[in-house]
């Protein structure tokens, strides 16, 4: 009952404090590029730079060949971006999460406002920023004839992915208030995690005996869903169920942890 109320709060707060929430989002999005000449261009440049590096290494140097039967495409760039763009949003949310509460210590100890808004902002902003690149990518796919009615599932997949990310960063942002060390190794975790996720390779390229390791990775079902929906035009119900369960568990776990620890934030910060 109590848990239900706690979860309900996460849905209510952004509406009840709409002005403040918009203010935070606005601040984050525009604040990120304030004072830089390039502005929004930078949010497109990062995936582009990544794209060229990986295409050069994997397509030109290592000469990896995709099987269209498995992936739905024979273009490494198309395959790579389908996983990389969602990953970028996710990893950006993750790497900024350690500072969500820590970086606003001054505000949290001096002004009473719903702290829930901070993790929510922390998820929405990177998804929004990378969403611009993603839209361009979708446009390219349409142009190349990849469009499929299965794309209606895309919002569901993105939604689940965001809830999963939210749960994770609630957990990490709360924990880093007490354990500041997290900030220092989150970068390493993210880069390791990237290589353990089938973004620059397909699951089938992984030797049979290590494949279980990949499937244990909680990001695997999400990236796999993106691949399926975007390129294969199919949807595996088991993967969808699995990722829904993951999102739900992580989100509820994050909320519970947050609720227990939030009253101590102002003491520790």
């Amino acid at each position, binding site marked *: 009952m109590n848990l239900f109320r706690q979860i309900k709060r996460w849905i209510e707060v952004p509406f009840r404090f709409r*002005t403040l929430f918009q*203010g935070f989002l606005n601040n984050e999005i525009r604040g990120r590029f*304030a004072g830089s000449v390039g502005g929004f261009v930078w949010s497109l440049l990062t995936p582009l730079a990544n794209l060229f590096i990986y295409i050069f290494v994997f397509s030109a140097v290592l000469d990896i060949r995709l099987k269209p039967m498995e992936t739905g495409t024979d273009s490494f760039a198309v395959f790579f971006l389908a996983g990389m763009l969602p990953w970028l949003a996710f990893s950006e949310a993750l790497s900024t999460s350690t500072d969500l509460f820590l970086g606003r210590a001054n505000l949290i100890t001096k*002004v009473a406002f719903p702290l829930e808004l901070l993790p929510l902002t922390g998820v929405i902003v990177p998804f929004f920023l990378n969403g611009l690149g993603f839209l361009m990518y979708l446009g390219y796919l349409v142009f190349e004839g990849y469009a499929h009615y299965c794309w209606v599932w895309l919002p569901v997949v993105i939604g689940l992915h965001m809830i999963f990310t939210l749960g994770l960063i609630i957990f990490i942002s709360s924990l880093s208030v007490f354990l500041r060390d997290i900030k220092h190794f989150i970068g390493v975790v993210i880069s390791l995690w990237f290589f353990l996720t089938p973004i620059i390779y397909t699951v089938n390229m992984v030797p049979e005996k290590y494949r279980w390791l990949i499937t244990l990775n909680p990001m695997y079902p999400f990236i796999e869903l993106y691949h399926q929906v975007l390129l294969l035009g199919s949807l595996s119900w088991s993967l969808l169920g699995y990722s829904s369960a993951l999102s739900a568990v992580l989100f509820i776990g994050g909320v519970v942890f947050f609720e227990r620890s939030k009253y101590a934030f102002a003491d520790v910060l």
Partner: protein
Amino acid sequence: MDSVKDRTEILTAIDAQHLTKAYRVYRKPFDRLREAVTRRSCHERFEALSDVSFQVAPGDSLGIIGENGAGKSTLLKILAGTVRPTSGKVERRGRVSALLELGSGFHPEFSGRENIYLNAALLGLSEREVKERESDIISFSGLEDVIDRPVKTYSSGMYMRLGFAIATSVDPEILIVDEALSVGDQRFQQKCVERMVGFSRSSKTIIVCSHSMYLINELCAKTLWLCNGRVRSYGMTAAVISEYLAYLEGCIQDEGTGAVSGSSADGFVPEILIEDVQITDAERKPIVNLEQFQTAVVQIRTRCSGFPLRGHVSIGFELADGRQIFGTTTKISGLDFVEFAGEQFIELVIASIPILGGEYRAKAMVGDEHALRKIDERYSASFVVRGKHPEIGIVWIDHQWRFPDESEAGC
């Protein structure tokens, strides 16, 4: 005992019951984790507040005084809702706006105008409400010329001014103010004080924590003195302040004689306070009813803690509506400045009081040695003059009736 009973019955704006805040002090950060994992206690307990209770009625104002580290800021944070008490509870009724730090949450890259929106939203205003108040906020802050520049280009004083203008524009029912106001130039400080006095006049609840006895005296009917996290004294402002000042003086003297004193008076602004203004008769007995042409003495008690200070005193009489009847100062009278140190009595003797029947009060003021800056002012309780003559007006003017024409005609 009566008052205790009363308190529970009247509606309160803030009701603080047995507030205690204990912090766990860990010798190293790792101990915190170790404790969480092993469930074995690895900390020392430090009580920043212990068992603090008080009530503030709507429209009342409460001052919080005490030395550094007495727990004032912790108490304000609990009242503002950013910190949870370890035990006890606070009930607040009405919109609360807390000025614990001005300008927290400003984004340095954004313009002053853009920051108004986010900051006001943080304090609970909707976008429409901010729009309505935007021009007020800007004009109060006096930053019209620079409002569209990024706030990183602002001086710290400008920063504070904008912060104060935003926070007070929220129009809260309860305003909580930390001593943040000691920043900014004199003119702006005065504006801030005026705005807060305005708040308290329009029956808002104000809670102020300050080292400025002048401000507390000006704003607050009641005052709470915190000492080492406990309530040392709680009651009418004048009484609590003089108790506190006497205590501080004691500390300074202790230090002077080499005695060990656990507390110091740092952060305290030396000032002259008028603690009392009384109307007495020639025998120095306080009176409320005066006969016209009686000898009256206006007696004031001042206190100057810290360093001795030079100043001038002004005393005058006013009607109930604030119109001044008469006023004089030691400077106008050609006297030398007064050397204020510790407790002092100053009297203005009026051999024969010429005011007509009615209700009046005396006003006393202390200014600096040039009689330029007001340091403190205070009114006496109102007193009544019982007229011997039923004339109309304010003062007695010696007069005679004559009828030259008639007397001629009579001849």
